[in-house]
């Protein structure tokens, strides 16, 4: 039982981190129809900025806030200055995000070098927790709870607030929302900034127990893609479901057949797409 419990917990907590990354991705895709290929870079940027803040203040909470806020601001600037110029041309938007990620990757490499780094979480959180059957790293459990908080927060935002109402309407019928006199551009900026915030935060959290280096952005991006394809575009609930599924697949494969991890990950993706081309909870458009 215990040999299965460990990969199970790892899978769930990794799924929680994936959810934190992918929920922003799915929002941007659902509302703005942009495949944000710089999404992995947001994660890495959050991790590196968190690292810098941590080094200068020695305060982990400041690192979390600093990483999240700065990536949020960077995302807003990217949206306002660059993406808005090509709004409506979906392929150009996607290409632009590739270019941005390409530049940022090189800039980060120049500043921080290529060695893997990690952020040291405070002992209170990092120490192993006794779960009865086994000791488990506290930071992973912490990430799990933050992810649940974030999920609930997002759900409240989307289902209970006016901006959430606009987002939901925008996912379903964007032209109609703007026809009703809502400034959809401002909503786009807000959503993109929110995505930056959440992804930057997940970067600092993830960077506190998984080492990161340039190149990690690409795996984060691909895992977010897989989560969103599995769960269905534009659906936050789907992202949660997809993230836990992928986390479990990844963790069990890594435990029992590490060589075949990617085959399992993409095999499941192909399988889901073959039977449900729009993912678990996605709507056909």
């Amino acid at each position, binding site marked *: 039982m215990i040999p299965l419990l460990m990969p199970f917990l790892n899978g769930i907590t990794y799924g929680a981190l994936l959810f934190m990354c992918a929920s922003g991705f799915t929002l941007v895709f659902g509302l703005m129809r942009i495949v944000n290929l710089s999404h992995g870079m947001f994660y890495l940027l959050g991790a590196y900025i968190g690292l810098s803040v941590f080094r200068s203040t020695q305060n982990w909470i400041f690192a979390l806030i600093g990483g999240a806020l700065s990536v949020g601001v960077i995302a807003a600037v990217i949206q306002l200055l660059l993406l808005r110029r090509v709004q409506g041309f979906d392929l150009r938007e996607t290409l632009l995000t590739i270019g*941005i990620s390409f530049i940022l990757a090189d800039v980060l490499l120049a500043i921080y070098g290529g060695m893997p780094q990690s952020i040291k979480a405070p002992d209170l959180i990092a120490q192993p927790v006794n779960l009865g059957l086994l000791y488990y790293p506290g930071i992973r459990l912490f990430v799990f709870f933050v992810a649940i908080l974030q999920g609930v927060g997002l759900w409240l935002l989307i289902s209970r607030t006016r901006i959430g109402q606009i987002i939901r309407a925008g996912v379903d019928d964007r032209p109609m929302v703007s026809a009703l006199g809502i400034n959809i551009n401002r909503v786009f900026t807000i959503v993109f900034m929110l995505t930056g915030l959440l992804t930057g935060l997940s970067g600092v959290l993830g960077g506190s127990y998984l080492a990161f280096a340039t190149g990690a952005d690409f795996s984060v991006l*691909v895992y977010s893609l897989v989560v969103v*394809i599995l769960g269905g575009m534009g659906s936050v609930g789907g992202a949660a479901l997809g993230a836990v599924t992928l986390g479990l697949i990844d963790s069990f494969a890594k435990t029992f057949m590490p060589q075949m991890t*990617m085959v399992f990950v993409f095999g499941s993706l192909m399988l889901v797409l073959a039977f449900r081309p729009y993912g678990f909870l996605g709507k056909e458009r």
Partner: protein
Amino acid sequence: MEIGVKRGFFKDALNRRTLCMLIVLFFVIAPLLLKPFQTFLLTRILFLSLVSMSFILLIGYGGMLSLVQISFFGVAGYVIGIGTLKYNMPTHLVIPLAVLIPVILSGAFGIIAIRTERNYFIMMTVAFAQLLFFGSLQWSDLTAGYDGLTGIGSPTLFGHSFKSRTELYYFTLIPSAICYLLLRRITQSPFGIALQGVRDSAKKMSALGFNVQLYRYLAIVMSGAFAGVAGVLGAYFYGMIAPDMLNLSSCVMVLFIALLGGVTRLEGALVGSLIYVLLDDFFSQYTQRYQTIIGIFFVLIVLFLPNGIIGIKFKTNDTLYRLFRMGENPNGPKANIS
């Protein structure tokens, strides 16, 4: 004005033909005109433009933005490397195999990918590219993991080894030229025209009785084959193959080349790769941060020059326009990357 255009028409056509002949002549005798290092760069320009043409076939004519082309290029390179180094296969056997495997892979990928469109299609290509990248890393018995395979010797055909830079140049030029002519033929054939129809309005084409998915599928497989040929040439050029060839920055290189030149015509790839290779060579001498510079250029092109250099519209009375009749191709695709 009307008369003026008509009177000038024959002259323009003549100029265009002369220009084409000059370009062909240049490529044929290039090793005589250029220094060995320049010939070396020109070789690189040739196969990079071929892989970018395979990208243009999909995006410009099929409306499918594929980020997996460089991976097929890399897979072909791996087949050359593995076949030559591990199994000592002769060149004339390993080359067909190296083209066949990307065709099979793109065939398998296409079955799933044609179910998706536009943004979903892009995501499928990213996911598949990543699968191949991890495959090249993790299948280390064959691919030697991070280190890659080095020391792929010169190709030997008909008992002749293409060792010198000039020989390698012709070894690259001839297949590239054949592939270019084939691609040109394909894009101008009824198939190519129908593919453009599918790009512009899949629904209409479907209503007219065209099997839209089949056209997409065939385009994906063909572009896989051309990327494979380019990969063969690239593997012999570099003499090595490593997982780097399959990652995102290589993919950006193909995007950059195609977008810089322009995706509305196959020739855009040649213009783009010429400029890319020169930029790359120039900046990498002076700075390690040439990736940033290339990236900034890339963003600027996407923002301000969506149809690339050959898509720039000149005024009809410009000399350049009359020489090249730039930005106008009555038989070519009209749409841009929107």
